[in-house]
């Protein structure tokens, strides 16, 4: 309870800081919106030419894309401190974290709350609404639950990736851009249901990095193509991915304390 209160305190101070620069905040938010709007336009114009892709219609693709975008933006908003962790290590700011009597993860999470991602979230919500109206999904309690599970699972998986990135910063600060393959890359892949990329990709995203568990399988359930309850709870199962990420982070902190760089 105390932890949550402290976290909210962090969030509130972050928001107050951002609001000191309202124009800049607004522009960044618009920028976030435009970047993902471009991606959306890409999908839109592809469907001007093609009516379907591997059995999925435009509105179904939008549904899937918007959920992934929403998950990604949420994770970015919450775990931005981990996403920009290299700066914290470089500036020595992490030393400050270590001389305070609170959990390191909480402090790093609190160090940055990226409200500008609201632009992306807005974009995702609009797309999602459009997708819902246009697709013929018959909504039920279980489907709404599935959606909720997708949001939780997806945010957890993306956050875990940011954790891994941050943990690697303890070992090297060089060339970590490659982690974008997994974060931005996943968002890029997630535009379309993962099955369109072929069997191998589906296997990889099922068993190695569980993107498919938060995107493809629950989508099938929502679209009514699968009715088994397993498809509904798979997004929650994807949370397993957080465990190795957490262990790596803990190991990284230990190494930092022994190397100090």
């Amino acid at each position, binding site marked *: 309870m105390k932890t949550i209160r402290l976290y909210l305190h962090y969030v509130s*101070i972050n928001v107050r800081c951002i609001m000191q620069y309202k124009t800049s905040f607004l522009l960044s938010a618009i920028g976030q919106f435009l970047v993902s709007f471009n991606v959306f336009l890409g999908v839109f114009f592809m469907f001007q030419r093609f009516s379907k892709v591997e059995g999925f219609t435009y509105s179904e693709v939008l549904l899937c894309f918007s959920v992934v975008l929403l998950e990604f933006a949420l994770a970015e908003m919450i775990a931005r401190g981990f996403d920009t962790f290299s700066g914290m290590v470089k500036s020595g700011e992490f*030393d400050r974290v270590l*001389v305070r*009597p609170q959990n390191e993860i909480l402090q790093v999470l609190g160090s940055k709350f990226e409200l500008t991602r609201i632009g992306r979230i807005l974009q995702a919500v609009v797309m999602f609404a459009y997708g819902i109206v246009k697709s013929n999904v018959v909504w039920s309690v279980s489907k709404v639950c599935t959606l909720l599970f997708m949001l939780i699972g997806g945010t957890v998986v993306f956050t875990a990736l940011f954790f891994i990135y941050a943990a690697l910063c303890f070992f090297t600060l060089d060339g970590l851009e490659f982690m974008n393959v997994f974060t931005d890359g996943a968002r890029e892949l997630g535009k379309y249901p993962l099955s369109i990329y072929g069997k191998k990709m589906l296997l990889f995203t099922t068993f190695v990095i569980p993107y498919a568990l938060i995107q493809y399988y629950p989508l099938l359930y929502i679209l009514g193509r699968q009715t088994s309850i397993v498809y509904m709870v798979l997004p929650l199962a994807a949370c397993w991915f957080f465990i190795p990420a957490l262990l790596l982070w803990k190991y990284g902190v230990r190494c930092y304390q022994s*190397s100090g760089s």
Partner: protein
Amino acid sequence: MIAMEHVCKSYKIAKRNAGFVEACKALFHREYEVIHALNDVSFTIHDGEMVGYIGPNGAGKSSTIKILSGILTPDSGTVLVDGHVPYKNRIDHVREIGVVFGQRSQLWWDVPVIDSFELLKDIYSISDACYRQSLEELTELLNLSELLRSPARQLSLGQRMRCEIAASLLHRPRILFLDEPTIGLDAVSKLAVRDFILRQNQTHKTTVILTTHDMQDIESLTSRILLIGKGQILMDGSLDDIKSGNESIDATIAELYRTYHI
């Protein structure tokens, strides 16, 4: 009480050479250099002492501070601070210490200083009564009443340093580490900061460990000096011990560095 015994710490640093060909080589093969930051360092500091920790850049000052504040784990040796091993029981240990890094800020840049203090109150779980009392006292002694409502970015360096010090003392630590607290300050702020530290030590019996390049800090604050060079404690004594005749303190220290070839 702070006790360090036979503490060693070394780092591996990747070598970098200039030139394109060298750079290409480094892509495949890296050479490492081992740097012994601390080489068998031992000392004891008693409660309520004020100690000046001096030495040239890269001598091992900040490694020592990092070990004592629980940021860094030593390779070997034992460290005890008030009965805690700093790097083993980090959270319990850091509750009792305050750290001021002179070159870095812990205040949130864009919000009033008081907001940063309130967050610290929650971070250190300080009770309302304690917080109010500490804040009142610090505000009066450091003359902060005018500053608390303005954002940190609008403060001068001297004003900010006063706030930084207050931020590190809100939770009433028993030990205070000051890493170059007067760097870049104007004369008035320097005197104010020194005066406050002295007072803090006298009234609360706070143990103070001070690293600095400013010898006037040492002269006016500390009774004991630890000189470190090339990872070893070279001298442990009082200012009077090393002062010969009526040389200035800077000349004395320069002489000292020359004697030890550091």
